[in-house]
């Protein structure tokens, strides 16, 4: 409330002092409440080396407040919290449940749930003729085992009577992991750091299969991950009903790109088990560098007062030899002046990373290996449907804020593997009187 009161006062003062008319970049304070419920399942959990439940649910809530500081400048505060429960993450330590350890059964330990929180502040300035836009942002995000700080900036130039737009942007993220290893690798005698609260002691269990369990585990000596991105954008109005854009992003990542609790099972090492759970031969090991390139394009066509067609295509490749295509189409259908329907379809595919192999198919002699199915070859189809309500006069009110729009959407996502997910999203937009 204090933030809103300050922003309103500041905004009003600035408005009064303007002597020359120019349209404000943002007329008034806008507030967006965004939320989502996400669920997924599958049989190839990376935490248990590519075998095991991927069941996960996540609830996210975000508030985005855009505040016009004067005619030209806008401050945006974006804060979000995401809480998830994950069966596979619970199996970082599968031995703390009330039932025999099993990769297809969630354990009950603390690692099965976490909260991610993020705050991003961004500031943008537009020139008097609105043909030059500068922006800068800082962000912080945190979860139990991960912390990130980011800075970024962009410059956008409009010309050709605002028919053409060129932009360049850059972002830097300085991230760090808290290294949490699978419980059997943390155990005394295995070279791990036994710092968990679960008092797991491998000597209290009977090891079946190969009873001489001796993983080749060496803890990571680096917990940092830095990401640098550089993006270029170009958009063009092609016709009074058609416009398109092209985007080119380069991303360089360095540091710990492996996830420190994802197990790997080797083909050339005898398997060891406790109860129904196969013990890790090692963690996933990935190169400490990755370079990504993405080229994307959008083309939107306003067919008539009822139908609009929105299309997107992206080609992606990186130096882990993943190549991917993404294509999507959405056809907003205005059924009344207030309600719009949003049917959509999205196709995605990718080739496998050089270092991916199925569970029990990696070799201990390799430098790098993973059984994370997110790095495997697959294709996915996604169908979506949404509805939005828009009241341009924002008649419905909560305190000083008028409700401008409500968006509700549902998406179903299916890979050609066992993985499926769905998400329900909701967005509420308010504008201050």
């Amino acid at each position, binding site marked *: 409330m204090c933030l809103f009161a300050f922003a309103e006062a500041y905004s009003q003062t600035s408005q009064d002092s303007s002597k020359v008319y120019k349209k404000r970049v943002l007329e008034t304070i806008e507030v967006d409440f965004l939320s989502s419920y996400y669920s997924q399942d599958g049989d190839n959990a990376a935490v248990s080396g590519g075998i095991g439940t991927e069941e996960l649910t996540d609830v996210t809530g975000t508030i985005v407040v855009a505040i016009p500081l004067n005619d030209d400048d806008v401050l945006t505060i974006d804060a979000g919290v995401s809480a998830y429960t994950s069966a596979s993450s619970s199996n970082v330590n599968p031995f703390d449940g009330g039932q025999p350890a099993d990769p297809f059964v969630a354990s009950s330990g603390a690692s099965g749930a976490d909260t991610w929180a993020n705050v991003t502040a961004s500031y943008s300035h537009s020139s008097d003729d609105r043909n030059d836009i500068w922006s800068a942002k800082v962000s912080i995000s945190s979860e139990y085992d991960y912390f990130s700080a980011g800075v970024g900036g962009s410059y956008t130039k409009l010309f050709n009577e605002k028919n053409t737009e060129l932009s360049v942007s850059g972002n830097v993220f300085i991230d760090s992991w808290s290294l949490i290893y699978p419980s059997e690798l943390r155990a005394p005698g295995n070279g791990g750091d036994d710092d968990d609260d679960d008092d797991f002691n491998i000597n209290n269990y009977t090891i079946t299969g190969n009873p001489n369990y001796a993983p080749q585990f060496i803890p990571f000596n680096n917990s940092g991950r830095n990401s640098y991105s550089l993006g270029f954008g170009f958009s063009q109005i092609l*016709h009074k009903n058609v416009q398109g854009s092209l985007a080119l992003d380069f991303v360089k990542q360095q540091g710990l790109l492996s996830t420190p609790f994802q197990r790997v099972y080797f083909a050339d090492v005898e398997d060891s088990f406790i109860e129904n759970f196969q013990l890790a031969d090692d963690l996933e090991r990935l190169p400490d560098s990755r370079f990504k390139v993405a*080229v994307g394009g959008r083309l939107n066509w306003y067919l008539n007062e009822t139908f609009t067609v929105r299309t997107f295509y992206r080609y992606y490749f990186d130096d882990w030899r993943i190549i991917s295509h993404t294509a999507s189409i959405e056809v907003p259908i205005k059924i009344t002046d207030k309600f719009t329907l949003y049917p959509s379809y999205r196709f995605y595919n990718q080739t496998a990373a050089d270092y991916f192999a199925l569970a029990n198919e990696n070799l201990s002699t390799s430098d790098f290996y993973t059984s994370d199915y997110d790095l495997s070859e697959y294709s996915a189809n996604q169908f979506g449907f949404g509805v939005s309500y828009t009241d341009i006069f924002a008649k419905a009110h909560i305190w000083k804020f008028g409700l401008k729009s409500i968006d509700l959407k549902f998406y179903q996502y299916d890979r050609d593997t066992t993985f499926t997910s769905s998400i329900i999203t909701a967005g509420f937009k308010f504008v201050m009187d």
Partner: protein
Amino acid sequence: MIKKLLLMAMIICFFSSCAVVKEYEKVNINDPDMALSEKKCDRNLTTAHSYREAAVGANGGKTGGGCGCN
């Protein structure tokens, strides 16, 4: 790679050869559904994709960093 860059250059030339659309003709272009970005309520969907898919970028979403994702 060179072919792709040439193709992109051709597309840019094609785009820039269009007649200028005046401000008063931009009613349809300014429709919210014509925005060349994803709707705000789709942001969490895009984030979910960036967690579970290798490809990121060129869509206004995450490009890497800020999460323990791919």
